[in-house]
């Protein structure tokens, strides 16, 4: 079963968009890990884990981004799932900052990322939606056919 052209196009756009974003942000954060640790610490969520997160998140982002851009379908799907989960955590963190009214920089793109605002939340929610859409678009053809036949059976057609 072949993909519908617009779905294939959307899939590639999401892969390149999300994957590119992750590779770039990961590389930027990797450039100054102690600075990134401070940015994480400023969120005041799990300050003790700030250095551990700062050391691991950039390479996790690069790994996810690479899987999205150059991976085969199963790895793209896994990358989409991992990205969605990671972005959901980021979203929860920025929401908590907005709710608590803390004046800090986002750290989303390394140093000089600008402050955390409602716009940051909206952007992160959009990215979560993009990751979820890509995960859904990258279902294996067999699973899609199975789902489609199940739907037909349910409607009796």
């Amino acid at each position, binding site marked *: 079963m072949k993909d519908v052209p617009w779905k294939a196009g959307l899939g590639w756009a999401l892969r390149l968009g999300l994957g590119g974003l992750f590779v770039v942000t990961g590389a930027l954060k990797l450039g100054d890990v102690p600075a990134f640790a401070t940015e994480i610490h400023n969120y005041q969520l799990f300050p003790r884990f*700030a*250095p551990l997160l700062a050391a691991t998140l950039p390479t996790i982002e690069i*790994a996810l981004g690479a899987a999205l851009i150059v991976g085969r379908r*199963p790895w793209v799907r*896994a990358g989409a799932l991992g990205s969605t989960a990671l972005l959901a955590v980021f979203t929860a963190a920025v929401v908590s900052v907005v709710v608590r009214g803390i004046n*800090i920089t986002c750290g989303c793109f390394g140093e000089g990322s600008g402050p955390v605002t409602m716009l940051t939340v909206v952007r992160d929610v959009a990215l979560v939606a993009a990751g979820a859409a890509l995960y859904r678009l990258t279902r294996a053809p067999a699973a899609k056919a199975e789902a489609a036949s199940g739907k037909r059976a349910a409607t009796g057609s």
Partner: protein
Amino acid sequence: MSFPLDRAALLRALSLLLGGAIAGLGLNAARPSGVSLLGFEPPTTCSAANGQAGPIIEVSTREASLLCGHPSVLFADTRPAAEFAEGHVADAVHLPCDATARGAEGALRKLDSAQTIIIYGASSDDGRAVAETLQRRGLKAELRVLGGGFRAWAQEGLACASGPCRDCLVTKEQP
């Protein structure tokens, strides 16, 4: 829109996360500029975090103006860059709340040389939040907060002339 999780994708996603994390830890250990996982101490944060801090003495603009120019006294301005550019106590170290970590590190190095640091923001509370953070970080200098912040300083017409603070003059606007 359903979001069915398939086991294979979940396992692959976990392997990507784990692989990325291990690579990050390895890279961090190999780099001289890596972050210390156990002894990490952030340069500064502006918002008060958990922890006990003693009271910080507030000084009036008049008292602060008398201290201005003393070689062991430094002023730290916590306001954003635009407000700092518009006007500040001369020779004040800029330590804004939205400072990048690198910027904050540089500012703190300068502050380390002072015996007394007078911190001010737009208001007293702005300066106090930073002062409490610096106190928790164990800064050895005596910390003071400028009562009323830069607003009060400006209203009083007090200003240090530009140039090194030891040469600056505390001036009062003539009516």
